[in-house]
């Protein structure tokens, strides 16, 4: 036989296994699931940002058609608080303020959208109708919806016990060393900026179905989650006190997450608890307007920073003070985002010898803020890459040259930064050079001149970024305040006839794990991708898992699979040795074939697995039957993807509209398993980054009303807002995981905003513009162009 099987292993752009069901309407998202006898929940939410609840009258509503139950905070007050997964300590060593986060409001509402009551009825419409008939007597209080409003003297207190609304006041770095560097500087560049608040807006709104089996006492929760095992742990152990063995959490197909579906949300606990109370399944589906006021938002920092340089443009020190908005309650990961996922990234790709960063986290009367694609790293990268461009402008050194002068050189790895991280590998010059060439940076001035002939202002900008992902070594994050380990779990089950089921604790909500993970198995065990099934998202099927976020699925989850395959191969060699009457040391294994070294005696994996399950001729004294292995993999370090993004933009002075005309990304994401999927991840991330730079902004008014509270008011990038995005990779391998992978899910959203904003500022340099805040909306640009500040001599 000389049939050629297409190569499906590492490096092949295998078409996705999951596509067929999605393309034919056979995906199973949470709202597609219906349980027999299911009732529907509707959540009544606060219309006020801050109010005391003087009373709730549910009598009329309770008597309405179809209503089964109405619950308020009085009913759930005995249950646990929605927990926070990370504890940060103040400068003085005391722990952060961590006020109770109730499932349903208890006496006070703290943001527009806070849950006040839940109505459960026979139909969704009936539940909604009844919710409108609930009378809530609010004593409206002044609100503190912004970082500034929450920190003025005498500001309203979001939580009565939290003085000054300060959640924590944290720092990292050696202040004395930092001060000395600034004292010796030839030049100091300072800069203040706001990182605009964003709404993640995964296209699938959140949903949850609680189910309770009255005979077994088992609860099941179907939920739109990126990490079902973590939800089981948080909700079971902390909120509802249900032992793991009696609680199954299923996260079926999930329509995008971008961080917003990591967290344990009140609605999950509400439907699970209510299902137990009523003995019926209870389904809740979020409407988009509710998503805007109940999904965790992202970003929302105000930062002051200074960069000290010597006379040659070498960075001597960086000093940063950031205020971070936590919202009204602490969401699951919120406290670590502006600290350990942010300040530790401030070295970027540069040799800055000293960095000192202070972070003040503040409660406000807004939706909780937590990780959104990139989480802390986009904020750090934006600040750093804008600061470097400003430093270039103010020292007269070319933007690219100043970066080169400060790059961590290729021979410096492993490189210890002054802010805790140790980078394992990278080649920042290579990604920069490749991007400059792909974007034809050298030819830009001609394109600028050409655009000018047509009345357009053209600009170009780059960012040379780095991020830390593959989250994370458990002992390290534990010492920093994480309340969980961040390993991952993989099981490889080789069936009797040689097909494979992979069980993974990672969760796919667009990333294509069913394909990429199958490729890992194909590459190593030689089993065709079509015969590898990847199972995820169900605590009843997968032993354990920490889920998908922080670009960790492949680096941590894939490594767990790799370790499990090590065990499969080790056991397979023993079986093969027995079958071929050779010694184990002489058995070689390569892509599905066990061979006695130096001979043509071989056994295929399927023969080994058959022997393992039908152990007639088998070393039964020393080996158990079966061929299934599980590994827990705890990473040794973070991984450090990096690269260069270049944006070329054009401004129409008539309208102020910024169009991205070219976008080039050259990323080092470590070893690439499926180039097609990696490109797609980068393109999607870049789209979100361009969205942040040009379009998106969650805005609260002084009363705490969310002004951009629907898709009509909050501008998401549409097809005609975006260019084709050229993606290339340049690989340096991760040195500490067995696959050499780094992660690609977040790089697009991290590298792109400063590239776009550097280009916008470049386009406007003749107008004397030093900096523009994101988003660079047409109104903002038009205002600048028409403010009569044109300095260029004409």
């Amino acid at each position, binding site marked *: 036989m000389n049939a050629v099987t297409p190569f499906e292993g590492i490096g092949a752009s295998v078409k996705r296994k999951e596509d067929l069901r999605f393309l034919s309407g056979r995906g199973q998202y949470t709202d597609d699931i219906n349980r027999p006898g299911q009732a529907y929940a509707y959540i009544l939410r606060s219309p006020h940002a801050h109010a005391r609840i003087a009373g709730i009258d549910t009598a009329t509503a309770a008597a309405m058609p179809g209503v089964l139950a109405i619950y308020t905070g009085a009913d759930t007050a005995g249950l646990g608080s929605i927990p926070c997964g990370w504890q940060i300590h103040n400068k003085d060593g005391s722990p952060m303020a961590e006020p109770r986060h109730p499932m349903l409001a208890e006496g006070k509402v703290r943001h527009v959208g806070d849950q006040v009551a839940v109505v459960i009825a026979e139909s969704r419409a009936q539940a909604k109708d009844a919710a409108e008939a609930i009378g809530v007597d609010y004593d409206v209080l002044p609100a503190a919806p912004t970082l500034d409003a929450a920190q003025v003297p005498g500001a309203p207190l979001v939580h009565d016990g939290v003085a000054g609304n300060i959640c924590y006041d944290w720092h990292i770095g050696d202040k004395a060393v930092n001060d000395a560097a600034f004292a010796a500087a030839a030049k100091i560049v300072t800069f203040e900026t706001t990182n605009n608040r964003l709404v993640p807006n995964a296209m699938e709104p959140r949903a949850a179905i609680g189910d309770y089996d009255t005979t077994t006492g088992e609860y099941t929760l179907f939920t739109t989650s990126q990490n079902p095992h973590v939800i089981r742990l948080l909700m079971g152990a902390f909120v509802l006190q249900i032992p793991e063995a009696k609680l199954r959490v299923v996260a079926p197909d999930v329509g995008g997450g971008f961080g917003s579906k990591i967290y344990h949300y009140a609605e999950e606990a509400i439907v699970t608890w209510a299902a137990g109370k009523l003995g019926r399944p209870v389904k809740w589906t979020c409407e988009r307007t509710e998503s805007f006021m109940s999904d965790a938002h992202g970003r929302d920092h105000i930062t002051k920073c200074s960069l000290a340089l010597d006379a040659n443009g070498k960075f001597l020190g960086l000093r940063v003070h950031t205020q971070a908005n936590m919202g009204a309650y602490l969401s699951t990961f919120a406290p670590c985002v502006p600290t350990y996922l942010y300040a530790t990234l401030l070295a970027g790709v540069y040799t800055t010898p000293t960095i000192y960063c202070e972070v003040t986290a503040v409660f406000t009367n807004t939706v909780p803020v937590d990780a959104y694609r990139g989480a802390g790293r986009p904020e750090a990268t934006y600040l750093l890459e804008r600061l470097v461009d400003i430093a270039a402008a103010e020292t007269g050194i070319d933007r690219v040259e100043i970066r080169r002068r400060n790059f961590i050189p290729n021979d410096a790895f492993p490189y210890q930064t002054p802010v805790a991280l140790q980078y394992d590998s990278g080649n920042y010059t290579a990604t920069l050079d490749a991007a400059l060439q792909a974007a034809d940076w050298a030819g830009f001035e001609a394109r600028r001149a050409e655009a000018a002939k047509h009345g357009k202002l053209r600009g170009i900008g780059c960012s040379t970024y780095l991020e830390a992902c593959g989250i994370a070594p458990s002992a390290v994050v534990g010492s920093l305040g994480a309340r969980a380990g961040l390993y991952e779990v993989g099981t490889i089950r080789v069936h009797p006839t040689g097909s494979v089921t992979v069980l993974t604790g990672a969760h796919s909500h*667009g990333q294509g794990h069913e394909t990429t993970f199958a490729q890992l198995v194909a590459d190593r065990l030689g089993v065709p991708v079509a015969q590898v099934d990847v199972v995820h998202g169900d605590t009843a099927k997968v032993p354990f898992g920490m889920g998908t976020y922080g670009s960790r699925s492949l680096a941590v989850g894939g490594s767990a699979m790799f370790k499990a395959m090590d065990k499969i191969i080790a056991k397979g060699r023993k079986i093969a040795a027995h079958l071929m009457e050779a010694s184990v040391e002489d058995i070689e294994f390569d892509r599905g074939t066990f061979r006695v070294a130096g001979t043509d005696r071989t056994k295929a994996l399927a023969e080994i697995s058959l022997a393992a399950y039908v152990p007639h001729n088998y070393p039964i004294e020393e080996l158990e039957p079966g061929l299934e292995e599980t590994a827990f993999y705890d990473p040794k370090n973070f991984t450090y993807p990096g690269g260069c993004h270049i944006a070329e933009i054009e401004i129409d002075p008539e309208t102020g509209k910024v169009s991205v005309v070219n976008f080039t990304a050259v990323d080092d994401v470590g070893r690439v398993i499926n180039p097609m999927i990696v490109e797609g991840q980068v393109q999607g991330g870049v789209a979100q980054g361009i969205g942040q730079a040009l379009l998106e902004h969650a805005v609260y008014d002084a009363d705490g009303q969310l002004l951009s509270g629907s898709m009509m008011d909050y501008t998401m990038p549409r097809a005609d807002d975006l260019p084709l995005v050229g993606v290339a990779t340049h690989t340096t391998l991760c040195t500490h995981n067995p696959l050499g992978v780094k992660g690609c899910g977040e790089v697009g959203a991290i590298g792109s905003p400063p590239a776009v904003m550097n280009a916008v500022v470049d386009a406007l340099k003749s107008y004397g513009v030093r900096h523009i805040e994101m988003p660079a909306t047409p109104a903002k640009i038009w205002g600048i162009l028409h403010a009569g500040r044109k300095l260029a001599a004409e």
Partner: protein
Amino acid sequence: MPQVTLTVNGKTSTVEVEGRTLLVELLREKLRLTGTHVGCDTSQCGACVVHVNGDSVKSCTMLALQAEGAEVTTIEGLAKPDGTLHPMQEAFREYHALQCGFCTPGMVMSAIDLVQKHPQGLSEKEIREGLEGNLCRCTGYHNIVKAIAAAQEVMHGRRSELASAAE
């Protein structure tokens, strides 16, 4: 309760609905055709797009009763009975034009209507403008645009087979 009779993917059904029931609710909840999705409540996202009498329609923005007598096609009705995918479905797969898959049914239904209404062919810019009513949060649209450009060649008979994404 009022009734509505309509043909969905070739099958005629008579269903009781409330006056306020939306077409998408009828499809998802009464007919259990859950391939059509709901991504918003302001007619912005296009996750709910189906074909009604040959035109793409946001099924969240049409009352079920307005579909009386209509021929409706949903994503479930696109493939041939033997499972052969529509060229647009095929192109989305070939060009990796979907990630989480949630926008995909609406995106595919919109794209088919767009291509059918432009037999002369669409440029990249026209495809982008034609997708104005559909949001995707995952892909950045890059591969969606490429998939539609490739599918139109097959749909208009200019190519017998889909060009491979690698070409």
